[in-house]
């Protein structure tokens, strides 16, 4: 391999060449402000935006008027939580979410808790990463305003039971938001079937450009309104001001169209590659496990712990392969991934994890090369590992008193 192998498609994706092609005219030829009502430049830009809006609406079974554009899923998540609460705070002051949500949902929840006095319940998850529906139901109160549960988890790929949660919320008149950044274009989504009221989407997770996202805001049964968190000219039906990023929107629309078109075939292909990678690694290496529910997860994602070997050290053994680790050696707190900890993983296993994200451009050759490199790397580091040595000697690591400092 002369070039580095990219296997971190959950972190971001390259812009698909077809998406790039669709975007280019909107930088230098069709460059009008989509809000310019008075001339051709504006009208053409607006038309392109509305076409993209329709593509995205179609992708999730919504109406175009229910889609607003944002700068990304982070903004969409912020808007969903803070914007909804601002609008309906008289209705209820309680939010229910999961401990495994993306940082932007957790942080926004904590902000509302700290600064606005909102009561937030952060529900734990089961060992496989799925929420316990009974526990969720028990957490719902008369003053619960919103439930926010992510569709597909970015670290372990786990798919939550969205339609069941939607049903629970509908029965109680509770708003339901889902962060679908990792799910869009990878698994089928229909907002009616799922019973969601708000759904966040991201461009750069689906072979579109970075810096663009969208939010589905239900218009009927019930009609959902949001107070904006970005104020200005009242764009996007007053919910998100700011000149629209036309080229990025066009790219996002095209990316979603392609993803929906190719979803069935791509799911098969990605799953096959992921299974090939997983099975080979589990076969060659002992004390190795896959994290998260094996059935309800994204195709193409595999989160694997290689016990007794530290994640960052392991990534150094594969310098020409791009993956990410659940180890937080560099973060000041020295704590491993909170998602993996939420699964009940021991600290060693959480520090020893690698997330493999297979995507549209991953080849069989790359998968085999990654397997080879990982096996070599793990074996080399296990030779260096005092923990592995102790385990082979029959020591139960959980009984050891470690000397902290």
């Amino acid at each position, binding site marked *: 391999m002369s070039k580095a192998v990219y296997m971190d498609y959950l972190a971001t994706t390259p812009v698909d060449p077809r998406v790039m092609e669709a975007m280019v005219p909107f930088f230098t030829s069709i460059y009008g402000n989509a809000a310019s009502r008075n001339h051709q430049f504006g009208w053409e830009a607006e038309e392109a935006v509305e076409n993209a809006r329709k593509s995205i609406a179609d992708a999730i079974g919504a109406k175009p008027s229910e889609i607003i554009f944002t700068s990304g899923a982070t903004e969409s998540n912020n808007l969903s939580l803070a914007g909804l609460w601002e609008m309906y705070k008289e209705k209820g002051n309680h939010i229910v979410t999961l401990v495994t949500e993306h940082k932007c949902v957790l942080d926004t929840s904590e902000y509302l808790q700290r600064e606005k006095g909102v009561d937030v319940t952060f529900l734990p998850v089961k060992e496989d990463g799925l929420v316990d529906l009974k526990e969720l139901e028990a957490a719902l109160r008369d003053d619960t305003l919103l439930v926010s549960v992510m569709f597909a988890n970015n670290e372990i790929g786990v798919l939550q039971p969205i339609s069941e949660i939607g049903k629970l919320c509908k029965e109680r008149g509770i708003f339901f938001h889902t962060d679908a950044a990792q799910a869009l274009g990878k698994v089928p989504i229909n907002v009616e079937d799922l019973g969601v009221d708000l759904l966040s989407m991201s461009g750069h997770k689906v072979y579109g450009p970075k810096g663009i996202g969208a939010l589905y805001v239900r218009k009927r049964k019930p009609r959902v309104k949001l107070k904006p968190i970005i104020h200005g000219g009242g764009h996007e039906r007053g919910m998100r001001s700011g000149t629209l990023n036309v080229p990025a929107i066009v790219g996002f629309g095209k990316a979603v169209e392609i993803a929906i078109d190719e979803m069935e075939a791509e799911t098969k292909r990605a799953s096959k590659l992921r299974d090939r990678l997983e099975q080979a690694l589990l076969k060659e290496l002992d004390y190795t496990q896959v994290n998260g529910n094996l059935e309800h997860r994204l195709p193409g994602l595999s989160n694997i712990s290689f016990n007794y070997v*530290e994640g960052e050290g392991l990534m*150094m053994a594969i310098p020409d392969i791009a993956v990410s680790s659940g180890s937080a050696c*560099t973060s000041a707190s*020295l704590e491993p991934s909170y998602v993996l900890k939420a699964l009940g993983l021991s*600290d*060693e296993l959480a520090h020893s994890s690698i997330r493999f994200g297979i995507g549209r451009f991953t080849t069989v050759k790359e998968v085999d090369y990654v397997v080879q490199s990982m096996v070599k790397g793990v074996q080399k580091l296990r030779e*260096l*590992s*005092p923990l592995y040595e102790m385990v082979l000697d029959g020591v139960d690591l959980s009984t050891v008193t470690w000397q902290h*400092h």
Partner: protein
Amino acid sequence: MAYSDKVLDHYNNPRNVGSLDKDANNVGTGIVGAPECGDVMKLQIQVEEDRIVDAKFKTYGCGSAIASSSLATEWLKGKTVDEALEIKNTDIVDELQLPPVKIHCSVLAEDAIRAALQDVKDKADKEKE
């Protein structure tokens, strides 16, 4: 984050990987760190007449942690016990050009050295009894 050449060198060609007989009277073993921090170092030294004649290490941790402990074994070999006590974590930081966020790796290596030296001392004291 870019690693220094020296860290990469130690990582790719670690010196003195392995184990000494921890039950031997002249072998000192220091095990420091904890799995939950993502860093565990085992450092062992073989002492003869107050001089460290061999040193071995095994480390669970990132590249900087591995390099710090590998370097430690290199420095320990040939030193007297007293000379070994003078090794400071800042020496390791300087030699490997560790960034601020990796300084704790050098501190752990210094701890491991002291723990191994202490173990040798404890064993010697016990023999005297």
